[in-house]
């Protein structure tokens, strides 16, 4: 059963359970993939029925500490192709190095975990600033984002605290997923259950948008113009959903 391609049920918990099983039985996987993976000719696909224990989460925290566990979760949310194998090797080495695991940057699984989780954290931070809401006629605030990593659930808590007295929706266009907030809690739902196509902008919206664009144009100092510096901090991939960049696209 060595060198198989192991499939997990798309959730973090299910992945942890699978890795735990593999480690316990000393199985070295060739690949670990979620259910949407389409195997190639040479893959020896293995579906295991593993009893999912919720306890696994605490077990991992006990093993490598909560800080490293959080990094693990960020890697899980990333768009990295071999993220599952990286996590497998991280936990494999975690058995030896325990809560000191992240100090071992000479191990590739550690340096990759740190690199990828930093990338996810970085993207979350960028989106806290770059999300642009527009007000719809029913006063709901609506924003679209297109993050590389699956960060919607990391962005939502920030806006729950910040815009607690507004109804708002953030749509991940890439994954067709929505985060909805009803002034109490936020929910993550699939986009198929929801359509906004017929909803118009509020009558105030246009005026506010024009004010913002005017402010943006005014605040730049001509004598200091620095295209490269702006691009470093605000790469073009964000521009599509940023109102003030509309005219420069």
């Amino acid at each position: 059963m060595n060198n198989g391609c192991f499939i997990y049920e798309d959730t973090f918990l299910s992945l942890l359970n699978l890795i735990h099983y593999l480690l316990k039985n000393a199985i070295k996987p060739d690949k670990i993939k979620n259910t949407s993976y389409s195997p190639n000719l040479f893959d020896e696909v293995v579906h295991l029925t593993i009893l999912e224990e919720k306890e696994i989460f605490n077990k991992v925290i006990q093993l490598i500490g909560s800080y490293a566990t959080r990094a693990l979760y960020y890697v899980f949310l990333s768009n990295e192709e071999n993220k599952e194998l990286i996590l497998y090797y991280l936990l494999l080495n975690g058995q030896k190095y325990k809560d000191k695991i992240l100090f071992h940057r000479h191990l590739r699984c550690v340096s990759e975990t740190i690199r990828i989780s930093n990338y996810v954290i970085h993207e979350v931070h960028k989106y806290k600033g770059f999300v642009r809401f527009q007000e719809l006629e029913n006063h709901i605030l609506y924003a679209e984002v297109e993050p590389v990593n699956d960060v919607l659930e990391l962005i939502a808590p920030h806006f729950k605290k910040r815009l607690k007295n507004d109804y708002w929706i953030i749509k991940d266009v890439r994954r067709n997923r929505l985060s909805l907030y009803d002034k109490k809690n936020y929910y993550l739902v699939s986009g198929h259950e929801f359509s906004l196509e017929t909803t118009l902008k509020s009558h105030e919206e246009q005026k506010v948008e024009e004010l913002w664009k005017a402010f943006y144009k005014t605040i730049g100092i001509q004598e200091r113009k620095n295209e490269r510096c702006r691009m470093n901090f605000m790469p073009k991939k964000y521009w599509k959903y940023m109102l003030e960049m509309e005219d420069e696209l």
Partner: protein
Amino acid sequence: MELKEKLQILADSAKYDASCSSSGSHRKTTHGIGNVAVSGICHSFSSDGRCISLLKILLTNCCIFDCKYCLNRKNNTIKRAIFTPEEICEVTINFYRRNYIEGLFLSSGIVKSPDYTMELLIETLRLLRKKYHFGGYIHAKAIPGASEKLLKELGSLVDRLSANIELPTENGLKLLAPNKDSSKVHKIMQYVKTNQNNQYVPAGQSTQMIIGATKESDLEIMEKSSHLYDTYHLKRVFYSAYIPVNKDSLLPSLEKPPLKRENRLYQADFLLRFYHFKVKDLLNPDNPNFNILVDPKADWALRHLDEFPKEVTTSSYHDLLKIPGIGVKSAKRIIYSRRVFKLCFDDLKKMGVVLKRAKYFITCGGKYFLDSSLFKKEFIEKNLVLEEFIPEKKEFEQLRLFNE
């Protein structure tokens, strides 16, 4: 006048203030709209590459002062405008709800008197906090010369206060800003320092100096900064390259704003605050200005080559910080990691060490990165200069850290 035109006039008048940080505040909010993020959040970047975090505006650009360098000096024939408190609140809330901004940066020209101006600022911010229940970040300018009572009230409404020192020496200030008196600015700083707590100016105070409008050397500027940090515990001193907006015989005529000099001052400022350097390490009366070709830390290292190369596997944290290409974060990572495994050059790179600069100044496990016969001042200096001035790498930007 239309609101849009007002906004354009009063943002245009405010844009020369360098500060836009929204970090450092731990203030808790329970109800209403908005909160603060201790890391600070940049919401956009303007065409000059500067971060846009706050709605940076003046309450009015009418001013009774005649500061030679300022767009809003009283003798300039420009369009003048004044916001009503409601207008400022409406725009702030509308921008904030759409996540355009992290909060408001409110400054003002001096109308009638310092006290009167300060009262206008307070009225606006009180409305924003108490009626609109705005919990986001507010940075306000304190008006020098206003009464202590008003300073007390303003400080309780904002996250950060600032009063600009404008020029590094008294003489400079007398020459270009005859109506300003630096002792009044120092009085504000002293008051804020004494009273600062979780309810009063929780994100601390900052100030700004204009660079290149007067003849002061970098040494004078850095000594001023160092004095301000030590005496008033300022969070930041901002440096703003002088941009000629007015014609006046007292002002220098510059082709371009001195952006590289500004960049060097920011680098040195960080060395003072986070790298345990003193002004006298970096500059002295015989050598009063920074080397434009090499950054201040590398420049220091080149003048102290006898202390190098340093061995990264054994050097203290303090010593690691002195190495060009190693920052606060990478120095900490080195300290943690070398306890658990044997470092090699490749590991250093993964830890964020900028090897293309550090490689000249370190050994790792006794090995020098290059041929050890190349450890010569001329060779290192030449390569560092080339590194910085390769055209594609050329960037003049204000240094930023998320956590100040």
